[in-house]
């Protein structure tokens, strides 16, 4: 397939090596090298990275991920910094100065105030900002949680609620709004709170599983070994069991925590990332990454372990100058070769969900999936397409791959059952996206963004679906729920103000980076907020493969999801394939039938184009009996297009023409029906029909001409008489005169 080959160009072309990988990081990275930097902090609530210096704080937006982005800076009062986080409305900055106090600074006014722990016995483990209705910031202390609300008038915090419990350490991700508090000797007893917009949900206490190496030893769980990840809008916790060499996963429901299973690990050092709802388990020592799609609760990896690659590394110095770095060329080259060496280096710090921070080089990488390589690694086409259909991040590429795969399997004449399964996958994915309403681009997504506030309770309610319900109803429920959850979750995952800012920023960036002038509207950008514009450039390359307006239409749509409508299936699969397979229409018709079957079972309307093409194929193959059956049984649904195609295809076959006529009549397309009837020579019948259905649009001359060509004066006379009787004023028209004259000639001729 040429499409596949060329689509891989932008990705592989600049690759440092031809080696195979399913996940990669792409050059250039984001560099956050600031002189005098005192460390780097990841603020996942605002999706920024923060690097403070003595009197300043620099922050880089990482969503959308733009390597060339310039930091924004704010002034900062001096002092030790344990942790630093911007408030979600970006008005305040909170700096943890010690184990007992946090300093707050108003960004505009520069005013500061400090919040301290009440007693000396407790110490502060950390804090996070929240968009929970009750409070704005949560302090995690060894003695429990303190929930504070910020009072902007008094410029101070007041305590809203306290949750008392012993805490050894905690993990929190803003994405999940979930804080897990570890307690106990082994730190394996957990209490969880979800601070969602509807309130605080306390999860039941649970213990994590830990194998013992010896009878007496009691391993202690470290905070680095627990990850909270969000996949398809569901919240999981992954826990590394170093003794058993297993990665246990737990899924959170609002009233239960259910252990899901365990993934094997092959390295003492493990890191976890989530890219586009795919779980990446980095086996750091082995320098490989294993991909899991835990959508179907399957424990088996998507594909074999493969190394993580650095791609897009410029080989020549001229390419190197493409990077906005100001370094000299030589040092640049050295630097580049350094980069290659440091994959899975000791200084790599994995940030949930999909970032890697190289502390020593002061660069930030973003992880990407190579969908094409993943797709190529499996021979089970249906599951590959299923996987691709769930990809949101690189939706265009996923869609493109799906279309290419569909075309390929048809061109390769794979068995019908296989093609049928592939079509089922595509159609059900489309149906699902219709149900959840995320298929429609533009206006629809705008609406969704606007209505996020209304639905804000959905992520909590939906995601924390009751465990019992989920288990009873089973997978089908989960599937449907997941789409919803995922969508709304993402929408509400960023707070309102943040959302706006993202939107405008995304808008500006795409505007400057994409030369095509095809600017996604702001609200759409929100959806692809993690889309780096460099990827966008790849799309431009991809786009060259296809042509015309349909592509740009497709490009717009791709922004939301890779689903393929039956209409697109027609234009991008059947049409191109039909041209190439002109010789064997029968196989193609079988596939069309499978498409119809699939669409029908999902209650999806199919565009008449598909019916028309089916009619053409069958007629070309002279399978008139089958065509008749398909029409009679309405497998090919009646429409004007189909009827006209039947008339066209039936030029050599009267039965097929009749089917077309009947269809026109049944559709009450009086005008078309009458014109076609007359063309068939049934002008008298047509006249009866016009009278019965009071059709006035057909010109009398049409009937008169037909009657004249029959050379039967009786018929001509009958037609003339008909119009004289039923069409007022007809006897004064030129038609009447002309044909009356012809009639008299006709009747006289045999006599003379």
């Amino acid at each position, binding site marked *: 397939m040429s499409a596949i080959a060329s689509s891989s160009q932008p990705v592989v072309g600049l690759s440092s090596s031809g080696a195979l990988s399913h996940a990669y990081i792409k050059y250039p990275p984001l560099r956050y090298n600031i002189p005098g930097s005192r460390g780097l902090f990841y603020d996942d609530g605002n999706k920024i990275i923060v690097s403070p210096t003595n009197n300043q704080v620099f922050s880089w937006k990482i969503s959308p991920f733009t390597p060339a982005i310039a930091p924004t800076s704010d002034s900062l009062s001096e002092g030790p910094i344990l942790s630093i986080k911007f408030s979600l409305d970006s008005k305040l900055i909170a700096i943890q100065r010690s184990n007992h106090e946090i300093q707050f600074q108003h960004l505009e006014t520069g005013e500061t105030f400090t919040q301290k722990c009440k007693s000396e016995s407790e110490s502060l483990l950390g804090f996070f900002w929240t968009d929970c209705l009750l409070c704005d910031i949560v302090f995690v202390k060894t003695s429990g949680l303190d929930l504070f609300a910020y009072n902007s008038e008094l410029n101070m915090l007041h305590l809203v609620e306290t949750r008392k419990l012993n805490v050894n350490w905690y993990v929190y991700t803003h994405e999940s709004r979930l804080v897990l508090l570890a307690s106990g000797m082994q730190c394996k007893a957990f209490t969880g709170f979800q601070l969602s917009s509807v309130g605080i949900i306390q999860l039941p206490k649970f213990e994590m599983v830990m194998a013992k190496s010896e009878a007496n030893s009691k391993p202690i769980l470290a905070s680095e070994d627990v990850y909270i990840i969000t996949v398809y809008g569901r919240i999981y916790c992954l826990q590394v069991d170093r003794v058993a060499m297993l990665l246990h996963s737990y899924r959170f429901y609002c009233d239960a925590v259910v252990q899901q299973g365990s993934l094997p690990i092959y390295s003492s050092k493990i890191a976890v990332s989530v890219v586009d709802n795919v779980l990446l388990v980095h086996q750091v020592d082995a320098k490989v990454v294993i991909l899991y799609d835990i959508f179907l609760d399957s424990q088996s990896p998507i594909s074999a372990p493969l190394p993580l690659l650095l791609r897009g590394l410029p080989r020549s110095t001229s390419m190197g100058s493409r990077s906005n770095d100001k370094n000299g060329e030589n040092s640049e080259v050295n630097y580049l070769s350094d980069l290659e060496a440091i994959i899975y280096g000791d200084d790599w710090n994995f940030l949930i969900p999909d970032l890697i921070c190289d502390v020593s080089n002061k660069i930030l990488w973003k992880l990407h999936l190579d969908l094409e390589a993943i797709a190529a690694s499996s021979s089970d086409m249906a599951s590959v397409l299923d996987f691709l259909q769930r990809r949101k991040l690189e939706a265009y590429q996923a869609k493109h791959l799906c279309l290419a795969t569909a075309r390929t399997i048809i061109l390769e004449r794979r068995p019908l059952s296989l093609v049928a399964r592939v079509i089922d996958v595509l159609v059900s994915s489309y149906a699902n996206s219709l149900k959840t309403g995320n298929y429609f681009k533009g206006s629809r997504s705008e609406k969704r963004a606007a209505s996020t506030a209304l639905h804000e309770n959905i992520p909590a309610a939906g995601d924390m679906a009751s465990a019992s319900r989920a288990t009873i109803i089973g997978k089908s429920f989960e599937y449907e729920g997941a789409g919803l959850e995922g969508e709304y979750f993402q929408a509400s995952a960023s707070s309102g103000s943040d959302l706006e800012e993202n939107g405008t920023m995304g808008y500006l960036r795409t505007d400057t980076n994409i030369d095509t002038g095809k600017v996604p509207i702001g609200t759409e950008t929100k959806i692809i907020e993690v889309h780096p514009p460099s990827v966008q450039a790849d799309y431009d390359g991809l786009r060259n493969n296809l042509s015309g307006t349909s592509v740009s239409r497709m490009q717009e749509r791709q922004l939301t999801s890779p689903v393929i409508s039956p209409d697109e299936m027609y234009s991008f699969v059947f049409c191109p394939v039909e041209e190439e397979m002109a010789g064997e229409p029968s196989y193609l018709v079988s596939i069309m*039938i*499978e498409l*119809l*079957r699939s669409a029908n079972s999902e209650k999806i309307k199919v565009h008449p184009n598909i019916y028309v093409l089916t009619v053409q194929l069958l007629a070309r193959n002279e399978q008139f009996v089958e065509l008749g059956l398909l029409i009679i*049984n309405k*497998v090919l649904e009646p429409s004007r297009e189909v009827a006209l195609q039947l008339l066209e295809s039936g030029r050599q076959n009267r*039965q097929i023409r009749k089917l077309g*006529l009947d269809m026109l009549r049944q559709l009450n397309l009086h005008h078309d029906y009458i014109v076609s009837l007359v063309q068939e*020579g049934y002008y008298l*019948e047509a006249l009866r029909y016009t009278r019965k259905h009071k059709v006035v649009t057909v010109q009398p001359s049409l009937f008169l001409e037909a009657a004249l060509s029959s050379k039967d004066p009786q018929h001509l006379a009958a037609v003339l008489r008909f119009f004289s009787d039923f069409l007022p004023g007809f006897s004064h028209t030129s038609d009447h005169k002309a044909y009356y004259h012809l009639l008299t000639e006709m009747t006289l001729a045999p006599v003379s």
Partner: protein
Amino acid sequence: MGLSSVSSNTEDLQFCVFDLKRGQYEGQELDKILFFYPADLPFPSQLSVIGLSEGLITFTSIFSPEAPCEVIEAEMHSHVFYQAEPDIWMVMVVEKNTEVQAVWRIDALRNVLKEVHSLFMMFHGSIRLLLMKDPTGVIVRSHLYTFILDYLSAFRKWRTLDFCCCDFLVGKKLHLPSFRDSLKERGTVEMLTVGREAAIEVQSLVRVVESCGGNAQCYSLLLFQDLLVSTTLCPDDTINLFTYAVLRLTPHALSSRQSSWSYRGKGNSGSNIITKSSTEAAASFSEQHSPNSWSEDHRSIPRPLQHDKWSKGKDGFLVNDIWHGDSGNSTSPTPVVYLQQTEERMYLCAYQHCSLTLLFVVPVSSIINGEQGISAVKQLILDNASLKMSKVEEKLSKGWGGENAYHVSGYRYLLIDADRNISRASPPSKVATLAKDSLLFLTKLRKEVDIEKSRTRWDCPDHDRDLEICIRAKNNAWVIARATRGKELYMVLENANETVLYASDAVEKFSNRYCNGAFLD
């Protein structure tokens, strides 16, 4: 329904097949005769029937070389002609029964001739081809004898009490299409009406099945009960295979062997009665009455129309003991049929799942190692399609309204789509409730329409005739015929004793409701 009063005795029916090209010289006239029934008729009598026919054919072909002679209406008999193949004629002589004013509808009788010939062609190839292979005519004669007698046995109805006295010549009646069958059309298929969803499933199934034949062009026919669901064959081949399936393969046909006396469904009052008639009868009959053409080695002639030879195998495929393998296998090999459309020899496989019967034909040329190849294809079908098959069966069973599904209360009708060779009629049990007068009138009306149709056929072959006839019968029933662009509708309304307007209103209602308004002006 008891015995029809219009059944002819054996002596009343004569049925012959002859070849005009043979026996041109004096003294060789017997050579012309390929088949004669009754076979015990003395040769001079046989020759006189054939001589008369031949004479008329020769004479009329002077005026109408394309279509010489169709029928002779004598005072006592009707001679029905059918040119099966060039110069090969089939003639049926039936006695006119003046007592009951019963009239034969000639087209109906000719359709019998046509059907037997089509079926013969399907299994044995054309008569001319057989004659070319064996100019002595021995093979053709033996084939025709067994085949036609097996076929006629389907028309033979036993007087129940006389069955034990195995005298077939006396106890046997041939039941030819009579006025009672005027709401029936031989040579058409009856279709099951299916919803869109089921139709898609059926199509999907058919496509999967046909893909099992590999690259070879395969065809299939799907029946539910005795109704056609889907076909990919051309109309002629569809009719032949459909007819054969209904006669011998569908669950009804198969079950007739178990319950010897209950002939179910359509066979009830129709001519197409399938009873446990002794097939041995035909054989012994032939043996007795035409010893010259029935010798021991002819027992190896496959007799596809023999009763009770098919049964359902363990794997769901139907098996038979009709065809005998060359190597003397115990299992009967897969039958081979000739398709008219492609003139190709095809293996015929039949699979049955509950009420669903699937006929599947694969080109002989595409199967390399005979039976082994066939069983591989069968296995492929089982693997790929059996699941779909049971799904389709379930869907169709759910949607099926039973034997009276197509009954429209108040109406007794026959609807024919001549373009697609499809017919639909009131169920036989409902037709049986009609008064004899109504049926007699309908037969007359149909005869008129037949004549009208054949005239149009010659006058302007591309143009279908529109006609509308309403007759008030003696018993005040309305007997109606409508024809519009290839579709025909015959109807008897016994309770519509009002005006002609009322009758035509009733037709329009029917047309709108059940024919998509096809019979609308």
